């Protein structure tokens, strides 16, 4: 996966190096590392975009820093998902760990199906994985809108 930003590529490598049971463990650990929302998103439901494709309520917000040329502007991601949705939190944490701080161009270049390489289909189910595809699509839409 040459097109992946380095931290996302590292995550994909971590996941694909272990068996299905350990992948779940990894996802669980990531779910616990999802940072809390900053104060300005306290009213998540009003100011953030809901990812309806996730089976549990997930809200995301995308900020793009000011900068000279649009493609180079760093992207910042914010997620809100309840503790009773650890899988969704885990997916969000993969996005956050892998993409937060990357440039708009690099975020847009992430292949839409990158998550297949995580090898979670068997352990998590394809249905549940849909949420991850949707999350990336919505992140990209917001990045496009903010750099247009």
């Amino acid at each position, binding site marked *: 996966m040459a097109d992946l930003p380095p931290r996302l590529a590292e995550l994909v490598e971590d996941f694909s190096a272990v068996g299905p049971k350990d992948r*779940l463990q990894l996802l669980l650990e990531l*779910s616990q590392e999802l940072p809390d929302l900053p104060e300005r998103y306290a009213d998540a439901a009003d100011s953030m975009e809901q990812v*309806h*494709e996730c*089976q*549990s309520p997930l809200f995301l917000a995308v900020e793009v820093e000011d900068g000279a040329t649009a493609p180079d502007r760093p992207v910042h991601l914010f997620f809100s998902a309840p503790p009773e*949705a650890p899988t969704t939190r885990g997916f969000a944490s993969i996005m956050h760990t892998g993409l937060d701080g990357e440039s708009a161009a690099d975020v847009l270049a992430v292949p839409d199906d990158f998550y297949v390489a995580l090898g979670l289909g068997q352990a998590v*189910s394809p249905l549940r994985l*849909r949420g991850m595809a949707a999350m990336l699509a919505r992140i990209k839409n917001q990045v496009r809108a903010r750099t247009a």
Partner: protein
Amino acid sequence: MALPADNDPKLADYAHPERLVTTEWLAANLGSDGLVVVESDEDVLLYDTGHIPGAVKVDWHTELNDPVTRDYVDGARFAEICGERGIARDTTVVFYGDRNNWWATYALWVFALFGHEDVRILDGGRAKWVAEGREMTTEQPKPATVDYPVVERDDTTLRAFKDDVLAHLEKVKGGTGALVDVRSPGEYSGELLHMPDYPQEGAVRGGHIPGAANVPWARAAAEDATFKPRADLEAIYLQEQGLSADDDVVAYCRIGERSSHTWFVLTHLLGFGTVRNYDGSWTEWGNTVRVPIAQGAERG
């Protein structure tokens, strides 16, 4: 050696009160011989973040579904799943889970297909247990493996296939059969098929099976995730929707999980005699060539 039933007065109103236990009952009976508590969630990781002490996990997708054929596991695999969890054929199994016990009732329904006799639901599920501040643990139980017989699944009594539903349509027209579509009104009318921009595992046609009543499954649940009292359930299913306990009923949703919740309500709480769950549901019907479909808010 089934455990005694919970004599809670709220449960006593239901048609089959022995199919439910309260959080108080479970707290008092945890650790009893002959009892295994099973957590079944939508979220595959939720159990691992903390669960009722001693509870084992059964995942609907990775454990109850066959990994290749669209079907449930066979008797041999089911026997392994139970045996590994310390469940014998005469064990009292209490299921609980997230989201108003949506997946817990699904797991219970699959156990019922295999004729496991003593299956019960924890009224209020995981949410109520947690809300009451009861004990949770991340410690994984290590049950000793027991022998569970290889039992053939009975797919004729509690389960309906597409051809059964096609045949059932005549009964629906004649007024002796009923169909209950437990999806959201948007899915029922055919408006909702997929979200903008994203492919959705779903159907190429939207709408519902002609004649089906639309009763979103979660209407049977109260705020605290318990089942609504019997009188409230009767107000919905009998008075409002015109169903009756001697109707031959088929319930469906998208893949048969939400409708297993309604199957439980109609069968065990309201005492309907014949309720089958059509697990092919809309992902089969809405993709099938030349089956009748109704669109809009009317039953059609």
